[in-house]
């Protein structure tokens, strides 16, 4: 049985956080959907709150410290990514964006991604479409068609609203469908491998 790595990035700040709660639901559902396809999944969760200072430091210093680099390697090396943010001021949170700002811009190319967002009010329900999707399009990640947004009222019954559960399953199925049958994730090209273009080629005509 093939075992896939699912990286989960959660930008929730409180504990318990509804963002992490949604991330966990999406992760479990994706694991089940993969198993239904005869594959298994290991899960690596990156809680961005624990890297808040690391990320700010990366902005000024230009490099990731050891702890942040481990988180980045986890995400970049995974077979698929589940990315969930709370809505702050009508968009993803600054913490969420900062993590994707400090990645090399090639590092998520072709990566299957499931996008999720949480907010206190359903009036932010298109945030996945108008804020998150363009970000991941820029990064050339492959976001599944269903993005999952959950407002406070979706959790109100103490469980998960039925229509939210349906969206979670649909999105997880789409992500599992994208991942299964694909070759395992490959690392981005090593910039320090021997060059494929010879220096003579670069000098041509100069």
């Amino acid at each position: 049985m093939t075992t896939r790595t699912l990286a989960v990035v959660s930008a929730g700040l409180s504990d318990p956080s509804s963002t992490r709660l949604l991330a966990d639901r999406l992760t479990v559902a994706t694991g089940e959907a993969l198993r239904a396809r005869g594959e298994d999944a290991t899960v690596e969760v990156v809680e961005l709150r624990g890297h808040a200072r690391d990320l700010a430091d990366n902005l000024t210093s230009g490099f990731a410290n050891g702890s942040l680099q481990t988180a980045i390697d986890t995400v970049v090396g995974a077979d698929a990514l589940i990315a969930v943010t709370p809505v702050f001021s009508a968009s993803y949170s600054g913490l969420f964006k900062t993590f994707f700002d400090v990645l090399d811009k090639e590092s998520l190319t072709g990566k299957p991604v499931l996008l999720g967002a949480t907010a206190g009010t359903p009036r932010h329900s298109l945030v996945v479409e108008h804020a998150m999707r363009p970000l991941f399009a820029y990064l050339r990640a492959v976001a599944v068609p269903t993005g999952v947004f959950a407002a406070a009222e979706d959790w109100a019954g103490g469980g998960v609203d039925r229509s939210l559960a349906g969206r979670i399953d649909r999105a997880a199925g789409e992500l599992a469908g994208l991942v299964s049958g694909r070759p395992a994730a490959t690392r981005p090209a090593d910039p320090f491998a021997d060059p494929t273009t010879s220096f003579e080629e670069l000098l041509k005509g100069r």
Partner: protein
Amino acid sequence: MQFGIFTVGDVTPDPTTGRAPTEAERVKSLITIALKAEEVGLDVFAQGQHHNPPFVVSSPTTTLGYIAAKTEKLVLSTSTTLITTTDPVKIAEDFATLQHVADGRVDLMMGRGNTGPVYPWFGRDIRDGIPLAVENYQLLRRLWREDVVNWEGQFRTPLQGFTSTPRPLDGVPPFVWHGSIRSPQIAEQAAYYGDGFFHNHIFWPPEHTERMVEFYRRRFEHYGHGSADQAIVGLGGQVFMRKNSQDAVREFRPYFDKAPVYGGGPSLEEFTSQTPLTVGSPEQVIERTLGFRDYVGDYQRQLFLIDHAGLPLKTVLEQLDILGEEVVPVLRREFAALKPAHVPDAPTHASLVAAAGGGHDSTVQAADDVTGRTVEVAQA
């Protein structure tokens, strides 16, 4: 092994007093620092090139020429010379002239410059950084090696029958280093020509330096210039020292906290643990510096940044005293004891002349204005 200092020539207010030096004071302080470097027994003084405030180093060979006249042993170098936005003809002329002025005590380091707005001021585009570095350097090499150059490229006006004067001293161009923090193409360029590679080795974790140097060494061998461990490597580094390491930390912290490259981010303690920055006693600097060899191998040149972020001249001169009296003599001895015999020293003018089979006057006489013969014909 060569030891020296490199400066970016910034005019930064001293955060402990709020006072910035005038440009006049800063230009003179660079000279004072260079002369002191020779006095305390260092080998190299390198200065940067910038074309915007807060820097005073737009015309490096003017300052270096004066320093050359006031010194006897110091090798004058750059950190870096902007190969992207400076006309290669101007670089060829300036540094060949400096060679004659300084009796050969000259080498230089090519760099691209990472300040986007500077490029358009010189009719360039930062996105062309690598192609500019490749084309301009290839032309620079020809200008020094061929008496008459016919050349056409992508970025510069073509040259027909052009002779760059004066010709290099003894017919031997200055040694060239290529500096880059993270562009493998530049390490490749250095390896291709068998030139030196320099990593500034400040501000970033040593892993970046290690990967770049390893790549350069591997490609140096690939291009047939010698074994990987014979490649010519230089490193930067930033230090601040006091006899008692706690005093060093206390004194340096306000400069660190306000420095444009450091302030607002990781703490001084985090930076010293994550990057090669060393703030402490001379013994700590010695130990840390000897450790650089663990990840780059035996290398040829170590330059320290010591006059950064508004540190007063008096303090910088004290740092030079400590370097010269307590640090460099130990480093010289220890590094020399570790270096295998087949690893070369950094090339100097004398060693390059010897390698060329001796020096020769390479003066190109003017075209004959009676017969109308050009230089090219006269040489044929």
